């Protein structure tokens, strides 16, 4: 069953345009030229119960705008979105009680008081029965390791500690749909890993659907089997992460180990590194098998591996295309 259903969703912003300088400023007092910016353009996709989907795109692609529309913060300019059967922008109690949107660091917590007091406030806001509240709080405290920080004023917490409390506060009402906008941004590697594991665990335990944006590909690789890629507000790719790589990575890397690391391999592919017998070549994806066979036949290779390029590089390739929409496959 689809918990998120998006059909031709659009968001157009009217932006006031003005040239530089005093004359233009004075002129703009009388006449204003408005420009249309299409932040989200005819976006369609759906997310099923229990799915974790990575929502990728460069800055300004329309990811956050889409998430805000799905969470009911922004009214769409066209098209339709349904989340758990609700129309988000109506912001009905039944809808808001079952979703959460985590973005930045300042949604759930009152700055001046300990997180536990903010959680109590959320208990009243979401009308969570005391027994459920205690159970969920225990679970979140355990999974996120909140014990030592719950009673400290939020302003005294580190960035990572605050983010963990934000996430706990956003999940106390056990939402069925999670919109996570850069949940690990600015955190150190350990904290990132902990939050990643937590999201996976929450998804597993509660069958919650998760739509996640992140600039850290480690997040995406660890959590999302499926990714949706958007660029200039348009859908570019929707499918398995592995297919994204297969379709958009034009090259593979072949690493070989040779006794004689001075051998000239430029005939086989582009040599990108050469270190103590370990030579790495970049070859066109379609040529991989042929080049590998030739190398094994021609050279005294003692070890070799063939790899897809890092996902960051693939994404970079996708967005670097002058007209990225031409690459659309779905």
């Amino acid at each position: 069953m689809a918990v998120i259903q998006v059909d031709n969703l659009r968001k157009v912003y009217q932006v006031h345009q003005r040239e530089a300088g005093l004359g233009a400023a004075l002129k703009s007092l009388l006449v204003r030229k408005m420009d249309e910016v299409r932040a989200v353009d005819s976006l369609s996709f759906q997310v099923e119960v229990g799915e974790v989907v990575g929502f990728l795109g460069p800055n300004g692609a329309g990811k956050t705008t889409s998430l805000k529309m799905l969470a009911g913060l922004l009214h769409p300019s066209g098209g339709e979105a349904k989340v758990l059967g609700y129309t988000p922008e109506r912001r009905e109690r039944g809808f808001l009680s079952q979703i959460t949107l985590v973005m930045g660091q300042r949604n759930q917590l009152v700055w001046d008081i300990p997180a536990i007091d903010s959680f109590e406030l959320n208990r009243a806001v979401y009308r969570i029965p005391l027994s459920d509240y205690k159970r969920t709080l225990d679970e979140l405290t355990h999974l996120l390791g909140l014990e030592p920080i719950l009673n400290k004023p939020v302003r005294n917490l580190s960035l990572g500690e605050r983010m963990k409390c934000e996430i706990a506060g956003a999940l106390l009402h056990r939402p069925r749909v999670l919109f996570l906008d850069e949940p690990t941004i600015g955190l150190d590697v350990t904290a990132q890993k902990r939050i990643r594991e937590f999201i996976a665990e929450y998804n597993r335990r509660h069958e919650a659907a998760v739509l996640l944006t992140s600039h850290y590909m480690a997040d995406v690789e660890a959590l999302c089997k499926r990714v949706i890629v958007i660029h200039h507000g348009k859908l570019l790719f929707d499918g398995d992460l592995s297919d994204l790589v297969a379709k958009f990575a034009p090259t593979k890397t072949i690493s070989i180990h040779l006794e004689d690391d001075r051998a000239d391999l430029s005939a086989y592919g582009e040599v990108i590194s050469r270190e103590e017998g370990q030579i790495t070549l970049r070859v066109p994806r379609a040529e991989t098998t042929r080049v590998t066979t030739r190398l094994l036949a021609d050279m005294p290779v003692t070890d070799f591996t063939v790899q897809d390029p890092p996902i960051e590089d693939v994404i970079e390739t996708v967005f670097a295309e002058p007209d990225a929409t031409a690459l659309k496959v779905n």
Partner: protein
Amino acid sequence: MLALIAYYQQRIKTSFIVQSQYRVALAIWMIGLVLEPVIYLVVWRTVAESSGGQVGGFTPGGFAAYYIVLMVVMHLTQIWHMWEMEYLIRDGTMSGRLLRPIHPIHQDVSENIAYKVLMLIVVVPATLFLVVVFQPEIQTSLWAVLLFLPAILLAAMLAFLVGWLVALAAFWTTRTLAINEFYFISMFFFAGQVAPLELLPDFIRRIADLLPFRWMLSFPVELFLGRLNPQAALEGFSAQVIWIGLAWLALRWVWTQGVRRYGAVGG
């Protein structure tokens, strides 16, 4: 309803904790609240004393009574959320409030109540101090004093609704200072702050009757001081109720339009 009461209890408790951490800020606010009426009081007393003992029926003691009661009513009806709304919207903090399954106005109502109750610790002694220093004279009746409380409650409701309505301008412009200033200047003239409305020219009084400001501040003061006959009191309560209804309807409409416009800035 029970759930809403539980929310208010929790929110007011939280507001007490938060607000009591900012003792210096609270003290400065309080000095402002007390100082403003004291300045008018001193000016008008001086004018009264130099014009043969009274101005338009107000003796120095009458002015003292007027401004001391005004100060108490100002405290109980004040609203500051228009100064915060611009920041909440410009900064995108409003998003967090919109995501919760409760109307954001409830947070501001509970913070408003918490502040007013907390500050009584200072307002009550300040009032007693001013009474001792300025020797107010009051000639009123029991019914007027009894009706003072409902008049204040209605005034506080009206002031809150109108103030919040003004605050919502922030959905349309990120420079609300001019609008806020216009609102406070209107209060200054038409709500009896610069001078009791009785002392102002007839046409200004007539304008004041047609606007909401008198019913938000001056009316409870006039009532308490025994300056209104029963008919004028009844008219005052009617004006308060009508304005509350209008402001509530306007607020609902403007809120819906504002949220539709909301840009949910930032992350």
